[in-house]
């Protein structure tokens, strides 16, 4: 070390101090940038959520008329030995429930008002009676959906002719927007007043189950094989490159694949959750494999060595030690993959899950649609009533996504072990 004339260490000169200040300044700038980026993202997210919430809130409401029905004057009987709800409804229909309701409405609002009662209202009354036969006695009051036109008029859109009627009925207390939780129980319909999201929701759930049951085991086992057992040669490299590329393939290609292969094998199951799930599983699997491989690679070799040295067989090392430690990472990959699959529309378009499905699917092989598809279909509709329903459906999709991710994160945290 040379002590020059000034005898000053290089870290004590003013030049050094100036450079140090610059370094601190650039640190602060960088932090600010990062913070700015996060705040911006949060702002966008909040904006999206608020917009959705504001728009969608109306989707959980329904314009309804209060119809008083006097069953004493027009009695109906509920057959005691009815096989199911449909039989009761049919019986009530035969007993003229439709006319009873129309009559009651006319009594309450006059002919014009009664004409604006939704044509399916009697069915709703019938279903309620089927559930609770005590409703078929005495004075009852039913909040029943209006027709689409009156609903539009109530909202301030639609034809100007119905506006005064709407106003009048509102002042009389007969017309209101009520909370419509039935939205979550009903299936798709042509009338926005009668539409529900349950069909699509159940379709999504069934499809996700199929996707998970196929993609997760195959993906995890593939990742295990590639990391633990595959010999390090050209073939393995080829497989690795292929899987990495698969993860980047546009999702519509998988739809083509599903169309060509799955529907060729199961032609009668077009638009079934089984086919949809299989197609989405193809799409999700590469993501799980990649995340799984990284998670497995991250398990320290000391754990493997420790297990081997005790006399564990390679399979035991993998399943008792490597897999549990890699599980959090694998679950993360699964979350990402499943979230993507939940929101996919393009591949399902091609395999035909875009049909109008009026009732919720009963099993994996029934016709079904999924949430994003439903949103797409509704957003295509001309009727104004569907706008709010679309936003409501988006909210349902987001909540479903949140729940799914929440479950996965909970599982991941439970399995997280410190090494």
């Amino acid at each position, binding site marked *: 070390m040379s002590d020059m004339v000034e005898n000053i260490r290089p870290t004590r000169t003013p030049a050094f101090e100036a450079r140090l200040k610059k370094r601190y300044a650039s640190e602060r700038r960088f932090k600010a940038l990062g913070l700015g980026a996060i705040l911006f993202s949060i702002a966008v997210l909040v904006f999206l959520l608020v917009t959705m919430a504001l728009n969608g809130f109306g989707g959980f409401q329904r314009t309804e008329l209060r119809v008083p029905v006097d069953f004493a004057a027009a009695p109906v009987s509920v057959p005691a030995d009815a096989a199911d709800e449909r039989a009761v409804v049919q019986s009530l229909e035969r007993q003229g429930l439709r006319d009873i309701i129309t009559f009651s409405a006319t009594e309450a609002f006059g002919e014009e008002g009664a004409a604006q009662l939704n044509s399916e209202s009697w069915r709703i009354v019938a279903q309620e009676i089927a559930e609770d036969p005590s409703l078929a006695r005495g004075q009852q009051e039913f909040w029943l959906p209006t027709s689409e036109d009156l609903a539009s008029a109530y909202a301030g859109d639609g034809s100007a002719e119905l506006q005064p009627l709407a106003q009048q009925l509102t002042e009389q207390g007969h017309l209101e927007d009520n909370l419509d939780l039935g939205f979550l129980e009903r299936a798709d319909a042509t009338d926005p007043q009668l539409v529900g999201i349950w069909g699509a929701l159940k379709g999504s759930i069934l499809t996700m189950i199929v996707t998970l049951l196929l993609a997760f085991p195959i993906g995890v086992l593939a990742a295990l094989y590639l990391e633990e057992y595959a010999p390090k040669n050209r073939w393995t490299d080829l497989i690795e490159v292929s899987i990495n590329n698969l993860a980047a393939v546009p999702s519509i290609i998988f739809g083509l694949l599903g169309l060509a292969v799955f529907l060729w094998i199961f032609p009668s199951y077009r638009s079934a959750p089984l086919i949809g799930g299989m197609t989405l599983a193809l799409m999700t699997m590469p993501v799980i494999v990649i995340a799984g491989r990284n998670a497995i690679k991250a398990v320290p070799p000391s754990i493997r060595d420790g297990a*081997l*040295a005790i006399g564990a067989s390679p399979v035991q090392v993998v399943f008792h030690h490597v897999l549990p430690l890699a599980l959090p990472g694998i679950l993360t990959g699964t979350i990402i993959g499943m979230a993507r699959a939940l929101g996919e529309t393009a591949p399902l378009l091609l395999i035909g899950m875009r049909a109008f499905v009026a009732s919720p699917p009963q099993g994996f092989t029934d016709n079904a649609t999924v949430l994003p598809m439903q949103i797409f279909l509704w957003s295509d509709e001309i009727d104004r009533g569907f706008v709010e329903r679309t936003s409501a459906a988006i909210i349902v999709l987001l909540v479903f996504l949140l729940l799914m991710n929440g479950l996965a994160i909970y599982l991941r945290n439970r399995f997280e072990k410190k090494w």
Partner: protein
Amino acid sequence: MVMSEATDSPLASQAQKSLEHENIETGEPKMRARDVDVYYGQKKAIDGVNIDVFTEFVTAFIGPSGCGKSTFLRALNRMNDTIPSARVTGTIELDGEDIYASGMDVVQLRARVGMVFQKPNPFPKSIYENIAYGPKIHGLAENKADLDVMVEKSLRRAGLWEEVKDRLDDSGTALSGGQQQRLCIARAIAVDPEVILMDEPCSALDPIATAKIEELIDELRGRYGIVIVTHSMQQAARVSQRTAFFHLGHLVEYGHTSDIFTNPAEKRTQDYITGRYG
């Protein structure tokens, strides 16, 4: 050299005892290596090693970095099998059986020849589970009560029981470094091995933890054949009765520890242990 009997000091009797340890009667060697070569691909890491390991002694492997002592140690329980490019020729016998023969069950071999590593590597499970894992996978316990007994016995032998008996469900990784290493030793003991291989077990530990492990090794001597690879010549001198000096893949000298450290036969050995190496 005449040992003075005039002193009754504990040091004198201890010195006498340690000399006696080197000279006790032995049976057949537990493990026997003859003409062992180990290759990593084309590179020869171990060249023509002949050595005997006895249950009665602690055998130390010393030598400069990269001399192959760890490689040879790992060959003794076939841990080199995990490295694809590794190849072992020659014979290594355990109780007369060639451990590289095609009929030899590697899993069983590793239960008989256990290993403790340089960095303590307890499983990320509870202390109880760490010890119980080995007996479980080898089916050594009939029921939970048996397993409890085994766990306690191993922990007692490793000198860890008193410190952890009230917290067997705590994570193994929550212990201090020295305790973790003793846990790993207890884990190796739990499957009732015949030989324990230790690869620089104390290099990550402080002097007090090191002393405890050395004391433990002394207690285990005779019950299990112990082979310890160490960078510290002082440790090799303290702990072992037989010492082997490795250099560039060759076994240069193997003999009584006190001879190696007071009057080695080979100049290379002498240069290394006196710090003239390099």
